[in-house]
């Protein structure tokens, strides 16, 4: 089953990280991505630009409305995701816990609907 691993972190805090810390986080993600690729679990994975680059689009009464940034002013925001092919939820949780963002933010594990 394919699980989406949605990585939520505090973007304001992320921006405060020193270059060394950022380097370390990048390295950790690189290591994780390699591990899941080697184990044939990896389907996709992307990092997102921070919410400062986001635009929210809504269509109401046929009119397109755009707003700057995400709608919700929550502390943690979606910052990236993986799609991993895991045998069950236990395996998915095991890998979600290895995602570097899980140690300072949170990872939401959502099974993908197969049509």
């Amino acid at each position, binding site marked *: 089953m394919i699980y989406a691993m949605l990585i939520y972190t505090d973007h304001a805090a992320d921006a405060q990280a020193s270059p060394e810390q950022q380097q370390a986080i990048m390295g950790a993600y690189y290591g994780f991505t390699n591990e899941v690729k080697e184990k044939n679990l990896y389907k996709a994975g992307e990092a997102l630009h921070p919410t400062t680059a986001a635009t929210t689009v809504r269509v109401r009464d046929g009119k397109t409305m755009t707003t700057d940034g995400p709608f919700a002013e929550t502390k943690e925001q979606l910052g990236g995701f993986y799609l991993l092919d895991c*045998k069950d*939820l236990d395996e998915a*949780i095991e890998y979600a816990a290895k995602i570097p963002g899980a140690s300072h933010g949170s990872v939401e*594990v959502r*099974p993908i*609907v197969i*049509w």
Partner: protein
Amino acid sequence: MASLIRLSGSFDLAEEALQDAFILALRAWTEAGVPDNPAAWITTAARRKLIDAARRERTRREKHPALRYESAAWQDPDTSFEAEFSPDMPDDRLRLIFTCCHPALHIEAQIALTLRTLGGLTTAEIARSFLLPESTLAQRLVRAKNKIRDARIPYEVPSGGRLAERLSAVQAVIYLIFNEGYTASSGSGLIRGDLCSEAIRLARLLCELMPEESESRGLLALLLLQDSRRAARVNREGELITVEEQDRSLWNRAEVDEALGLLAQPAGREPKAPGRYELEARIAAVHARAATPAETDWRAIARLYEELSWFIPSAVVALNQAVAVAMSDGFETGLALMDRIGELDGYYLYHSARADLLRRLGRNPEAAAAYQRALALVTNPVERAYLTRRLEAVQAVP
């Protein structure tokens, strides 16, 4: 039931198949009489129902590929049945316990699911035990089953490093079920016996299935010892009676003996330090061994609470330790220890324990004030009645 769930990969399908099998049995047995082994008859019939359902499902799936996602957790019973089937394999029940108590499910759902699938309670009975409308509980069960299917929570005994953590989750669920029965947080009766019996049955099952885990034995012993006092714990008026004041002849000897036997069992091949349930059971066992309150080995209890405080560095454990010290080394010493515990001001048992020591020391006005603090915090009507009685007694002799 556990076998059927494993084979079909679905709680709903297994339940349906079992129900169908009972209907079949009703018809067949009235005509031909009850077979020699009714349980095996039912399981076989349910198994056939599952195979039929699987065939129907396959046909449907071929016709409607768009609906395939509904049966993502489906396993083909035709192939797995003959090879693995044996009715009520203990392995199946063990797997199921871990599924029902999976931490990805809400704790309330874990409890409901465990009682429904491994306990002997119907949805209506569980709803009654938790004072919930049956529809609420039914919905809770449906949501949990859907999550098991959609998120693919596995039917397996967790391996290696995960086992210890998940086993304590299972033990915690059983303990919660017992406590809900033993100290009902709402409702007028203090004890709901059916939940206590179910918890004991589940703890016993866990011991049978994983005999090498001494902490499960500790849990079973603890539940048995607490349950053994069930009849002595409340008087005819429904009022709470403390361990000291209980009529010990009402204690259930069979349960006490079984618990003491469990605690006397030698540790397994790889002995572990006693966990929290075992330590709590050993504390309860000290009380159980004393024929009269005066014979209680409070020093042993104080020592066990100290050991327990390494596991659970909580103020509540410190409070109990202080009570034991008060009983063995003097009320003054115990009270001094108790006064050092700061963070329990919002906990009624802290104030009632303090009140109790002050009363024994003859400091009645202070005791009255402490009982009043406890009364302001207590929610259980039975315990409230007990505290009111105490308060009136100390107020009568200022």
